[in-house]
């Protein structure tokens, strides 16, 4: 438990920073909603959007022509950018967790204590999940609060909250997938300075795979390799999270976690 507590304590500051930035962004996006709804922006936007090639619309999650005068659809659109930042944060929580101790040499302290390597991994996973959950909860609460303020009177509050719950559950799920993969990266990379570029690179590569899968029918199988597309906000508000995507996420998480344990238990620490 002491490792868990220490990990949470060490990561607390970063959660606060990420939360503050994302909450502010969210606030900015949502505060634009009333003007979006009232000023006939939707018409304007629609004409402009129709002029774009479909591939581009797809790339930005605009293909199904979201109705920006509806709060949920507007939010789902802006939310996908926050979600990108958020799942990258989840991935980084994982990919830094193990290798940081090696690159900074602190493993020489930690592993000189009477602990098993597997326990170090377990405690760090618990701590990272806790921190990420905290981040998601802060984001969800702040989104709901702000949305209540800008919500049109005809929108049922309960419906809105349920919709948000779905969006944030998807966000949490995708975040955990990237975190689990991040942990596997952390067990493998030779140095901490590689953890961040590899994680961010992996996110964008898989995200692009997901977009290709939408654009080119032959490549549709690629969507299984883009965790972000397991819970694409625009789809989630319309269709919910598909059970197949949940299963796929669990498979990714399980495989990555098993790989993490196997490698970490046998690795020579680089000191």
């Amino acid at each position, binding site marked *: 438990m*002491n490792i868990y507590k*220490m990990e949470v304590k*060490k990561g607390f500051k970063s959660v606060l920073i990420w939360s503050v930035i994302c909450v502010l962004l969210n606030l900015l996006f949502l505060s634009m909603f009333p003007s979006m709804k009232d000023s006939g922006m939707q018409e304007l936007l629609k004409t402009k959007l129709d002029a774009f090639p479909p591939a581009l619309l797809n790339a930005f999650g605009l293909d199904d022509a979201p109705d920006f005068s509806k709060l949920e659809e507007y939010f789902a659109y802006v939310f996908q950018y926050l979600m990108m930042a958020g799942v990258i944060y989840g991935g980084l929580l994982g990919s830094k967790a193990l290798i940081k101790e090696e690159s*900074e*040499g*602190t*493993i*020489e*302290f930690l*592993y*000189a*204590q*009477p*602990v*098993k390597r597997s326990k170090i991994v377990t405690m760090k996973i618990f701590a990272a999940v806790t921190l990420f959950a905290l981040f998601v909860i802060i984001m969800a609460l702040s989104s709901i609060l702000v949305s209540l303020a800008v919500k049109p009177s005809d929108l049922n509050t309960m419906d809105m909250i349920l919709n948000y719950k779905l969006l944030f559950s998807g966000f949490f799920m995708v975040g955990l997938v990237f975190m689990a993969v991040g942990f596997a990266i952390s067990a493998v990379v030779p140095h901490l300075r590689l953890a961040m570029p590899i994680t961010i690179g992996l996110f964008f590569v898989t995200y692009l795979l997901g977009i290709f899968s939408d654009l080119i029918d032959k490549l549709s199988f690629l969507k299984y390799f883009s965790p972000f597309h397991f819970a694409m906000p625009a789809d989630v508000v319309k269709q919910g999270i598909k059970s197949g995507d949940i299963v796929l996420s669990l498979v990714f998480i399980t495989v990555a976690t098993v790989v993490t344990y196997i490698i970490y238990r*046998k690795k*020579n*620490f680089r*000191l």
Partner: protein
Amino acid sequence: MSVIEISNLTKAYGKKRGITNVSLKVNKGEIFGFIGPNGAGKSTTIKVLLNFIFPSSGEAKIFGMDCVTETDKIKENIGYVPSEVRYYDNMTVEELLNYAKSFKKQVDEDYMKELCQTFDVELNKKISELSLGNKKKVAIVQALIHKPALLILDEPTNGLDPLIQQKLFVTLLKAKEEGTTIFLSSHNLMEVEEFCDRVAIIKEGKIVDVRSIEEFAHKKIKRITLKLSKNIEKELKAIGAEGLVVEGGKITFSFNGDINKFLGLISKYEIEDLLIEEKKLSEVFMTYYEGEGM
């Protein structure tokens, strides 16, 4: 009973670093010095003992338990001071010591306070503010708080000022009296010979020699430098000169035989210069290894 038992341990590791067929036994209650130049394999051996790295072949046991499979049990009774202390920068010294404490079954609070005083550790300072030497002091306190049965110290004197070095050895000797076994590495035999019971010399990953310090550390030996017109190497060897080196007309050698014989021999020649020094055998011992590229 052996506290540490290393048999035929090999670790292939990078290009040059690593150890080959290292075998060692460290007995209960002794201070065992592990001596060798930087890069000889001291830290590699210690890292295998603590399971930071896995052996390529051979095995190591501590308290009769396997260093790979039972490392967590072994570590309940080990204190470790790394050669280069790197701790969590954002923590204060107190937080770090408390963190270390949280892993141990039993910590004697009074002893911990006493250690902090002895080593002059400032509890409320941040780790990032500490100099290398001060970090090392924290590491020493951290390694001792649970009164472990075995202390493993990797170059413990590195970065410590002479006063603290002395305090360290006083503390170690006290721990030894209470039955603690101490395994310490150093690149300088002279520095530790006063405190060690036995030493192993390691060079290029291989154990060169294991000796009891009493065998040679306190014995004195004469180191003679002689300059004369004629080369009398053979004659000197005949009366027991060892480690002869001839350089620029000077002959340097170690001599432990009858000084009268030596004086009788050289009186026959015209002497330009003569220097007789008294050296500890261990110093001579070191120079041999240095001469071989140590």
